[in-house]
């Protein structure tokens, strides 16, 4: 086992952080360390949180984490914010809401930009989940970018997915529409101190009734007021119940397999793209092909055949 890997397994923050940087930059150095730590993963309960922008996800995560800490559990948090498609930069501000977790050795927070990936996550998220898992964290929380219709990828990586809504944004349930509403294992109406809570709960519950009519688990709808610390204990309890349900129904293994499948696909995809578009040997050839497509001397399908043909040979 290499040095970095053993340090990561002891939970050393510096090593964890450095390794995360390496995987985020798709650095080839990371591979051997990731290979070493993989056997030590699988223990952490991975919770994904998505939902409307302005729903108070960060504050909710802060409170959930505090509750886990009270129960003696360690937590890793991945907070994802959108990368600007124009500049490639990102403003990662979720930590500001998690000030209460500062200086707690049992909490590790990493802010990440989506770096061009759609779906609400970053392509390195699988790796980072593995790293935090291997470092001994009992719980890993992934906070995705605030939601539209496309940000559903979180289910690929999470064991339990929470969808966070707020009252009074009644149309939000309409606008979220299919996709995001379907991925929830638990619905949360946060900012429950605001008017319109009962209505929001009723709307979601009627959706749940339709959705779960032929499922064996009815998706719970909880209310919380994160800034007042209300409803958190019940939520953490419900998350625990969900994990037990997964284990009992063998869904857990199905989920995990899906995650590893996603991870494998992502690693292959990145390597492939890197090989084709970044490795200098191939890059020039690809540039030529694109020129030919532009001049209508070739079509994209034929070009793809050429590239893939060369690789698969």
């Amino acid at each position, binding site marked *: 086992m290499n040095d970095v890997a053993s340090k990561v397994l002891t939970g050393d*923050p*510096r090593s*964890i*952080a*450095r390794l*995360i*940087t390496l995987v985020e*930059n*798709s*650095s080839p150095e990371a591979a051997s360390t990731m290979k070493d730590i993989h056997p030590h993963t699988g223990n952490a309960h991975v919770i994904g949180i998505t939902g409307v922008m302005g729903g108070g996800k960060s504050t909710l995560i802060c409170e959930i984490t505090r509750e886990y800490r009270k129960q003696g559990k360690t937590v890793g948090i991945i907070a994802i914010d959108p*990368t*600007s498609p124009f*500049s*490639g*930069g*990102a*403003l*990662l*501000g979720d*930590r*500001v809401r998690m*000030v209460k977790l*500062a*200086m707690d050795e049992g909490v*590790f*927070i*990493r*802010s990440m*930009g989506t*770096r061009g990936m759609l779906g609400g996550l970053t392509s390195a998220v699988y790796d980072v989940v593995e790293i935090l898992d291997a470092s001994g964290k009992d719980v890993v929380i992934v906070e995705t970018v605030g939601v539209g219709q496309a940000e559903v990828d979180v289910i690929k990586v999470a064991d339990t997915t929470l969808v966070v809504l707020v009252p009074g944004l009644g149309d939000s349930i309409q606008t979220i529409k299919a996709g995001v509403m379907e991925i929830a294992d638990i619905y949360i109406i946060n900012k429950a101190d605001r008017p319109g809570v009962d209505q929001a709960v009723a709307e979601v519950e009627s959706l749940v009734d339709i959705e779960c009519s032929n499922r064996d688990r009815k998706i719970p709808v909880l209310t919380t007021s994160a800034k007042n610390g209300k409803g958190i204990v019940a939520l953490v309890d419900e998350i625990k119940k969900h994990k037990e349900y997964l284990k009992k129904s063998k869904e857990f293994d199905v989920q995990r397999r899906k995650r590893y499948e996603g991870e494998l696909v992502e690693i292959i995809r*990145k390597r492939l793209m*890197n090989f084709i578009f*970044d490795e200098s040997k191939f890059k020039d050839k690809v540039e030529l092909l694109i020129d030919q497509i532009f001049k209508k001397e070739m079509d994209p399908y034929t070009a793809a055949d050429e590239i893939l043909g060369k690789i698969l040979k």
Partner: protein
Amino acid sequence: MERKIRVLVAKPGLDGHDRGAKIVARALRNAGMEVIYTGLHQTADMIVETAVQEDVDVIGLSLLSGAHMTLFRDITKLLKDKDMRDVLVVGGGVIPEEDVPVLKKAGVAGVFGPGTRTEDIVDFIRKNVKP
């Protein structure tokens, strides 16, 4: 895969004037960097802990309350103690010219006082960040 420069923009101490810090954060984002903003009321310990977890290349300190000599140097000392020499430290705010050499000696690589163009901060970081 190009690597992104990660910058921590921090407000140490009790100073609540964040107009400049936010403008700089935005300018750095527009220059393609990933910017983690700590929010207000950060102690040296908190700033360095965040810098570790986020594995930042740069720490940008903003302070307008006059406490820069104490607080900036607390942070550079802590970084030294933790052997985090690769992190570029820059600062800005209300910092008189005569304090700048002392801060530089303590490890603050660049001090950007009132009237600084945001482009100059971006250029400085690009030029001085460890590859």
